């Protein structure tokens, strides 16, 4: 795979055969994926979802010393308002002096739709470079400039000579794909083409280096892995994964969220790239292998003890550290068993529906089975081969229902109404709808909570125990606030509106 000479990456429907509409069992879904036919369906009715523009912001809004220029009408990027506080506090966990999120909007209007928005973008880039002196300026390109034919790459090529900041166009027009995870490819594409380059070590050294410190550095790098974090992770998750790696003698560098420009350069010195979520990273690490010869591991997501062990062993294997890793896994697992004992009686046989990113829902299901709970339904934003390894940690899920849908709560509400779970674990933004079905609710992720590694299993168990112990708020809201669907919809097949594309 090498798409790096293209202006923008291919969409995932084409590159990975990603599907966004499916209703059936997990077994049927995996079979359809293997046969390569899950990307052939769409919907005759749909509700609002996200687009690759909004999802791109998940990474680029987190970059340190960066200014974001939303190239589009004034509404594009408006959602960043909610990220202002979190972006600042999470950046400051890395660098106490970090600036908060700065973003501008080129504010395209009717005249620009006719005349083109390139001049406005040039003005905005010059202004951002002069006024804020950032290391990088990211330009996510929305639908309007894509439709009217703005050549943003040409603008960037022209201005790069006069700006101090590195300019990164992100081709993420929402209409181009319904598999919004293509956003990650868009961001990495821009990063790979404009930001990633070998660090100039000689320039960085203040004194003449000696052979010994050179060797020390090389040894340290040979024992360092790049961990590719995702926007839904917390600092606690990072600390837990780092703890496990340190315990087997490895160091971690974190990319891309909350990184600064130089982090992307030094990352090229590491010995291995490690994916945490296959949906995020394959485009980036495959290209790093092709372009810079860095090997990678992309397999499972370290949520749940089996997945964590598998993740850790895959990394250890690369460094021939399996024995140390296995010892650590055994010790952690024993400790976890002791810690979980207090929760098991409360959680046994409780029935759970999970909705959200397909990697994350299947991974989280492992924790539930570990606790003796029953997984009775999945909903994933999309589906492709990267969810496959996660099924290996689960038992008896072939007949469990799997709905592939980016948001589309009407399908899920219908499904949940039939399945009647005891608990719903879901992606952010849909909580208010599931609560109206009276269900206790655990957020599928939260950037201030720990879900990953061994401590993550304990934290999830502890939180489910608490949530199940007092579900009154949700019961009451369900009693007073009905959902807005027609009664006839609940009689209908939940997958009625899925059709051949």
């Amino acid at each position, binding site marked *: 795979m090498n798409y790096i000479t293209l202006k923008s990456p291919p969409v995932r429907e084409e590159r990975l055969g990603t599907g966004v509409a499916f209703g059936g069992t997990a077994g049927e879904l995996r079979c359809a994926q293997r046969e390569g036919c899950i990307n052939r369906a769409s919907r005759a009715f749909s509700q609002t979802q996200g*687009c690759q*523009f909004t999802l791109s912001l998940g990474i680029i809004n987190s970059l340190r010393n960066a200014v974001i220029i939303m190239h589009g*009408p004034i509404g594009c990027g*408006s959602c960043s308002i909610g990220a202002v506080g979190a972006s600042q506090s999470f950046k400051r966990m890395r660098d106490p002096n970090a600036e908060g999120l700065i973003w501008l909007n080129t504010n395209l*209007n009717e005249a620009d739709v006719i005349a083109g928005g390139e001049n406005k973008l040039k003005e905005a880039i010059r202004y951002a470079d002069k006024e804020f002196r950032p290391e990088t300026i990211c330009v996510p390109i929305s639908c309007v400039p894509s439709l009217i034919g703005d050549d943003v790459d040409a603008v960037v090529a022209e201005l790069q000579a006069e700006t101090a900041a590195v300019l990164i166009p992100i081709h993420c027009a929402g209409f181009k794909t319904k598999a919004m995870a293509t956003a990650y490819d868009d961001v990495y594409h821009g990063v790979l083409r404009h930001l990633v380059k070998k660090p100039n070590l000689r320039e960085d050294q203040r004194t003449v280096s000696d052979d010994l410190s050179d060797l020390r550095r090389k040894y340290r790098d040979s024992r360092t892995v790049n961990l590719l974090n995702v926007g839904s992770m917390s600092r606690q998750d990072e600390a837990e994964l780092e703890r496990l790696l340190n315990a087997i003698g490895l160091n971690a560098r974190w990319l891309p969220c909350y990184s600064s420009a130089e982090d992307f350069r030094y990352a090229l010195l590491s010995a291995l790239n490690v994916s945490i979520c296959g949906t995020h990273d394959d485009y980036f690490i495959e290209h790093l292998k092709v372009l810079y010869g860095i090997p990678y591991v992309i397999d499972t997501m370290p949520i749940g003890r089996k997945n964590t062990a598998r993740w850790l062993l895959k990394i250890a294997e690369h460094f021939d550290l399996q024995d140390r890793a296995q010892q650590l896994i055994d010790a952690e697992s024993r400790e976890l068993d002791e810690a979980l004992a207090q929760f098991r009686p409360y959680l046994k046989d409780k029935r759970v529906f999970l909705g959200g990113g397909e990697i994350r829902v299947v991974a989280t299901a492992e924790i539930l089975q570990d606790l003796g709970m029953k997984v009775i339904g999945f909903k994933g934003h999309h589906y492709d081969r990267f969810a496959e390894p996660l099924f290996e940690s689960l038992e008896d899920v072939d007949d469990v229902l799997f709905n592939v849908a980016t948001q589309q709560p009407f399908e899920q509400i219908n499904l949940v109404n039939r399945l009647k779970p005891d608990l719903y674990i879901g992606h952010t933004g849909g909580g208010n709808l599931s609560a109206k079905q009276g269900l206790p609710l655990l957020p599928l992720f939260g950037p201030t909570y720990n879900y990953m590694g061994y401590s993550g299993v304990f934290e999830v168990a502890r939180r489910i125990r608490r949530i199940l112990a007092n579900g009154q708020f949700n019961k009451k809201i369900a009693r007073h606030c009905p959902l807005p669907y027609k009664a006839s919809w609940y009689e209908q097949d939940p997958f009625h509106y899925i059709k051949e594309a």
Partner: protein
Amino acid sequence: MGRTLDQVRYKCALGAMQTVQSIERVLPILHAGPGCSDKLSTGNGNSGHFAPRIFPCTNLSEKEIVFGGEERLRETIENALRVIDADLYVVITGCSSEIIGDDSAEVVNSFRLQGKPVIHASTAGFKGNNYLGYEWILQALFEQFLDDGREYETEKGLVNVFASLPLHDPFWYGNLDALENLLADIGLEANIIFGYGKGLKNIERIPRAEFSLVVNPWLGLESAQLLEQKFGVPCLHYPNLPVGAFETSKFLMEVSEFAKLDVEKTKKLIADKESKYYYYIERFADIFLENRIMSKRFTVVSDAQYALALTRFLVNDMGLFPQKQYAMEDVPARHQSTIREYFKDMNYGIEAEISFETDGHTVHDEIEKADYMGYPLLIGSAWEKKVAVETAAHFLSISWPLNERLVINSSYVGYEGALKFLEDIYSVVLTRYT
């Protein structure tokens, strides 16, 4: 204005989906790209009955961009009518569907001809912001839902009320509520279409109203004037959202006179209200008079509505002096000179300078350079927090984006509202002692 903006105070016209959302049982259907709603659904208290994830959307993709999206829209409306239970469906269009030239109005008309409750408003993001989008939604309701040749009889004492931008202004609900109560006090019935228990039945009463009352320096005025043209409902434009005793009493008198009510009765009511208001002020007068840290000069960075309302209150009731004020919602040029005059109409000939700047960064530079003769009092949005820290200001966040406060149904309007405003300001001021 079409220049690059930093720390902006509004969304694009498609943000008017929130105007639709705030009318009970009226559902927006978006003919737009897949992420548009996600980008625009920030606000306060919008996980309502029709939460943004409920809105049907055509989620335009490459296929529709190339071949046209009208069929996709038709299919989406048809199935929305089957799946979601609403009284009225409002199709609103985003940039991509308008650039490719879909005739959404025609698709919607075909449903209306079948007697389906569907109307259409053009709200492409490049055409304007969500303040203008609000007017376009109102106009679509008046033209497509009400203007069907029916005759309407006037209901004595019924008043259409338009004030703050729903779901965008954090206090929109409380403001309408407070205005409704003030009107009830002088014997008028407010006809409001936004919020709890209103909805279509109130929209249907709009042409029957004795008059429309627009309580905003400019927003809603042109829509109300359309009602005058179409249904002969006269319009009383009261530019100032009344906050505090002085302004509220003035408001009640002017409305009473316009509605030809018994002015003596209103005067009696005002005397009672002011007496109670000053009972509270008297009890807390030592705080207002004798603390030495309250600001002398203030700046409001908000929309024209609050810039005017809070400036008038702080000057006319509290005796403060205005520094420069900012109305940041991209006030249409045709309204600006009139609004400037409103800021010159204060007691003792005190005047305030009003700026229609839309770029937050520019405004903050000006605030940093201004001399407030002590701690500034800065009333704005989450964007002002940083400049407030830098200038050691007393800072109160009241406008979108509002990130650090929860506002459910409170308001600064009227006699009671002003007391709430004072509570909020002094709850910040008094933290200097702790």
